[in-house]
């Protein structure tokens, strides 16, 4: 193995060590208590299944699905704060409790927001505020 390869391997090993891939030592159940803001979205929000049917759109996926994917990937990266394992374990639990009647991928989005709120990565007030601003922005044209 030449020097360049060794450096690349060293970089790779460092990447492995610093990445959040490990299974947590003790499992603690995620808090599945409903969150007011998300309950509102769940109740009032129109899911893609419904919208696509109403407007005659063939695409089975909402336009934000790939962006959601990217958010989940980026969060599980080295500085993200929410490993894939932790996120998916919470999602499994939430999908079978609070969000069980919501279709995928809306369910996935709600579960992600719920997990981030419960872990203090964002708080409910700032999320509600930002949603209001985004809505105004998107509807201002």
């Amino acid at each position, binding site marked *: 193995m030449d020097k360049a390869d060794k450096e690349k391997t060293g970089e790779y090993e460092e990447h492995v060590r610093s990445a959040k891939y490990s299974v947590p030592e003790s499992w603690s159940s995620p808090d599945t208590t409903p969150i007011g803001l998300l309950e509102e979205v769940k109740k009032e929000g*129109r899911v893609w299944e419904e919208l696509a049917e109403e407007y005659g759109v063939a695409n089975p996926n909402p336009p934000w699905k790939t962006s959601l994917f990217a958010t989940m990937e980026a969060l599980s990266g080295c500085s993200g704060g929410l490993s894939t394992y932790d996120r998916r374990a919470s999602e499994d639990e939430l999908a079978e409790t609070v969000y069980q009647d919501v279709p995928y991928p809306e369910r996935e*989005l709600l579960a992600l927001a719920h997990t981030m709120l419960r872990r203090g990565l964002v708080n409910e007030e700032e999320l509600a505020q930002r949603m209001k601003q985004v809505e105004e922005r998107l509807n201002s044209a």
Partner: protein
Amino acid sequence: MSDHDHSHGHRPPAPMVEEISDFEILEIAVRELAIEKGLFSADDHRRFTEFAESIGPLPAARLVARAWLDPEFKKRALEDGVKASLEVGVNWLDPTGFGTPSDYTDLRVLEDTPTVKHVVVCTLCSCYPRPILGHSPEWYRTPNYRRRVVRWPRQVLSEFGLQLPPEIDVRVEDSNQKCRFMVLPMRPAGTEGWTEDQLAEIVTRDCMIGVALPHPDRKVDDKRPVHPAVNPVHH
């Protein structure tokens, strides 16, 4: 000379959803806050979005079709899935040089034989060979599939319409963040003389997860129902 009509032969524009849902707003809000708080960079987000939009099952289908036609390529694919992926245009190191955070960089190709049928799962979360096979279907991600296919593979496969005689062993491969799998199913009868393109068309995603067999008459996966798990998550 054809008639000239006022619409110039334009098709009507494709339908669009003309309202903004709360879910769309929520997704944007979460993302913007996360970037502002430094949880990730806008640049990383853009790269992973582009990655998400670029992946699909076609490269894997091509790998299977080529393996059916070229025994040397098949040998290479079975020995080193990551290297063979390059030959169908997939670089497992994209987009960051280490793949994506949850994809890692190892792929194993599992060859079905007359006596062994493989099926792939990820019991812990839903790891999937996304760079070469695209996005995982919803049913693959459910606890119902993940728990049941490792315990009762034949029963689960029969629910997918795949009845296997007892002399065929079923081998369930459990994926994880460090290792992903795809199935190389057996080439079906009725495809003699077919080109690589024709063969690739009948290798659907479900065939490469292992829950379906390729068939000369089928180019699209059946729709699968999604079932909730009966017991709580940490049962």
